[in-house]
């Protein structure tokens, strides 16, 4: 069927990407589609499946820790479960969370393009993503069980462990390749496919953050690729490159690992910051404060973030000069993040705030991310680092950043954009109820970890001294509240796909960016005519505001 024939069927209106079948029907029309919107949804569905697995493992860990000693599993199983939790959450949920789902769906629309630069490579990246995820999960069922090394695969244990470390390494390698392809696609798309008139400083801020992220994805991921490959080679052939028994240096492994894995932290957080920068001005009905500062701070984070990796290794053996330099750089990288937080707050100031669900989640992001960011500064201080290194303080810190930050960023994006993607609105009241469960549950779960970490509770331990019991108990109860919140939120969202109130208006929230100027849900080619851009993306009609002065 040609697109003309379909257009006639729908009374001259372009069919949405959901109706347009392309080749094949049902599942085939999805998994063979090179439409960036369908690929975004493929990512969304697979991502949520992996997220459910990750949450389940996290829940089991917390349950084990509810009381000292063995509760529901043995120590070996616990090690495997926290490894799986880490690998799944990092490589399969947080890293692809925003770029692969919402980036794929909205990046071309936001810059006024019909698709990404390489649609087929885009589909390939999803296949690699699914393959990597399946290998990671299947390794549980193979004899030997899944890896028990932690997601960091530190040598020498990762070479000696009898579990299926190689599968997990291979899975991470494939996922890295998928991530590289997405990054490469986005950089090229942003350079080559912006609509006429969309200069760099007329791009929405989420594009700036996706652009910075994409560069980090392209430049940092190959390092982890080769490093993980070398660990696999080490396991197969015993080459000795990292094995101290053969002259290798395990600390070098840690350097190579963190040269990627610290920038990866910014791959995780930058896109979420982009989403927040979109949501705040829309619901405050104000032009974003300090557009250029936010844009350049994304680039700044990408640059500085690539130079701070060794702050993960202050206790691993490093010269004092090295420690000093990496500590300073760690403090510097906090500046661009703080610039963003200040600018968001300044945007809210004197705005006409409408506390709709997306804004509520965005505010949750700012609050939790700030706590995560500040505690990060504690850790960058050398003396304090000696006290809290490898304790649950660290666990609390990165959950505040990765879950309270990126996780809430993903939830914000869901509440902001899902109605646009599916043309159905969720129940606002339920979304707000879910938020409070999530917010309270989150803090109950992770805040006690700061306290016991400060007191000396090591991370990754299966057992603990009785004096930590009360904190672990509170934390586990928090995990239940959090999961109730997740269930309420996802039920509300998933139910809305079928039963939600249909939304047909283009501009659901009153935003000024391009996605609100195409039909809901968007048609196959996004735009009937490629728009010409003349205004910056957050031109709220503050020109209307002088009314106030007139009243005076």
């Amino acid at each position: 069927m040609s697109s003309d024939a379909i257009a006639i069927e729908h009374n001259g209106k372009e069919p949405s990407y959901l109706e347009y079948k392309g080749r094949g029907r049902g599942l085939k029309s999805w998994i063979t589609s090179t439409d960036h919107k369908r690929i975004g949804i493929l990512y969304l569905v697979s991502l949520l499946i992996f997220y459910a697995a990750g949450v389940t493992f996290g829940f089991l860990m917390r349950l084990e820790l509810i009381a000292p000693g063995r509760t529901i599993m043995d120590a070996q199983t616990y090690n495997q479960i926290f490894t799986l939790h880490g690998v799944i959450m990092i490589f399969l949920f947080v890293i692809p969370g925003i770029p692969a789902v919402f980036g794929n769906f909205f990046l071309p629309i936001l810059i006024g393009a019909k698709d990404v630069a390489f649609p087929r490579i885009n589909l390939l990246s999803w296949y690699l993503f699914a393959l990597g995820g399946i290998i990671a999960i299947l390794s549980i069922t193979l004899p030997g069980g899944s890896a028990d090394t932690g997601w960091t695969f530190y040598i020498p244990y990762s070479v000696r462990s009898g579990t299926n470390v190689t599968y997990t390494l291979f899975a991470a390698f494939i996922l890295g390749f998928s991530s590289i392809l997405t990054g490469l696609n986005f950089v090229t798309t942003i350079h080559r496919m912006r609509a006429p008139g969309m200069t760099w400083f007329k791009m929405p801020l989420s594009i700036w953050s996706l652009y910075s992220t994409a560069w980090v994805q392209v430049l940092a991921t190959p390092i982890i690729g080769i490093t993980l490959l070398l660990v696999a080679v080490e396991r197969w052939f015993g080459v000795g490159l990292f094995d101290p028994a053969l002259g290798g240096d395990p600390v070098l492994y840690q350097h190579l690992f963190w040269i990627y894995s610290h920038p990866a932290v910014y791959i995780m957080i930058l896109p979420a910051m982009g989403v927040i920068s979109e949501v705040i001005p829309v619901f405050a009905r104000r032009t974003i404060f300090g557009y250029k500062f936010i844009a350049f701070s994304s680039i700044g984070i990408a640059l500085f973030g690539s130079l701070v990796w060794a702050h993960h290794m202050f206790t691993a053996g490093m010269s004092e000069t090295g420690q000093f330099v990496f500590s300073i750089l760690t403090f510097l990288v906090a500046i661009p993040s703080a610039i963003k937080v200040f600018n968001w707050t300044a945007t809210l100031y004197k705005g006409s705030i409408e506390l709709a669900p997306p804004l509520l989640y965005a505010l949750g992001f700012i609050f939790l991310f700030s706590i995560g960011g500040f505690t990060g500064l504690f850790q960058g201080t050398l003396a304090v680092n000696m006290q809290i290194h490898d304790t649950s303080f660290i666990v609390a810190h990165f959950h505040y950043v990765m879950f309270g930050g990126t996780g809430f960023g993903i939830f914000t994006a869901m509440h902001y954009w899902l109605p646009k993607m599916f043309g159905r609105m969720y129940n606002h009241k339920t979304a707000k109820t879910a938020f409070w469960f999530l917010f309270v549950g989150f803090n109950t779960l992770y805040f006690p970890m700061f306290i016991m970490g400060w007191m000396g509770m090591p991370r990754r331990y299966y057992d603990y001294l009785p004096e930590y019991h009360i904190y672990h108990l509170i934390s586990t109860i928090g995990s239940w509240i959090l999961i109730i919140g997740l269930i309420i939120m996802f039920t509300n969202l998933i139910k809305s796909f079928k039963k939600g109130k249909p939304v047909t208006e283009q501009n659901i929230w009153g935003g000024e960016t391009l996605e609100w100027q195409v039909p809901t849900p968007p048609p196959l080619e996004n735009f009937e005519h490629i728009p010409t851009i003349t205004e910056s993306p957050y031109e709220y009609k503050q020109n209307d505001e002088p009314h106030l002065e007139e009243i005076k």
Partner: protein
Amino acid sequence: MNTQEHAISHVHRDDIASRMGMWLFLFTELLLFGGMFFLYAVYRYMNAEAFHIAAKELNTLIGCFNTAILLTSSLTMALSIIAIQKDNRKLSIFFQLLTIVFALGFMINKYFEWTTKIHHGIFPGADVLLSRDSGEILFFGLYYVMTGLHGLHVIIGAVLIGVMTRLTAKGIINKDSFVKLEAAGLYWHLVDIIWIFLFPLFYLIT
């Protein structure tokens, strides 16, 4: 691939974007090898003496020969692109096939080089090698991993050029549309340039 009618309705072609994508991919390849060059640098610094002794055991003549082969193959690859630009399809195919022949020649040399070493008991995990100084173990570990990964790239490159030869024969790559061949050429030059660094690091600095 879903929407052929979609593709017909607006043919999107942007050679600059394709080249840009390829260059970005080449950056990732450089960084992939960069990780290993980093390891080489650190271990050479830590074990200068052992690296010096171990490097003497590599056959410089075979190394030189392989370097000459790869450099020539880069030339033939470039010539095949010039040929297609001048609309000489047959000549372009000839040069592409010649490039593949050079790639095979390189791999055959590599095969003999490796098997000789393995025959002498110099390979990871072998008792002969393990009895030596740890710096020498590292040197040969790096030698096998780095030239091995490079060899893998030679094979991928040769297959890629094979696909291009087919596309040229079919006329899909032609005078007006040769960006795919250019991309394959870029990849081949990358394989070449990595060898240009591997060769002195392992064979010449003794």
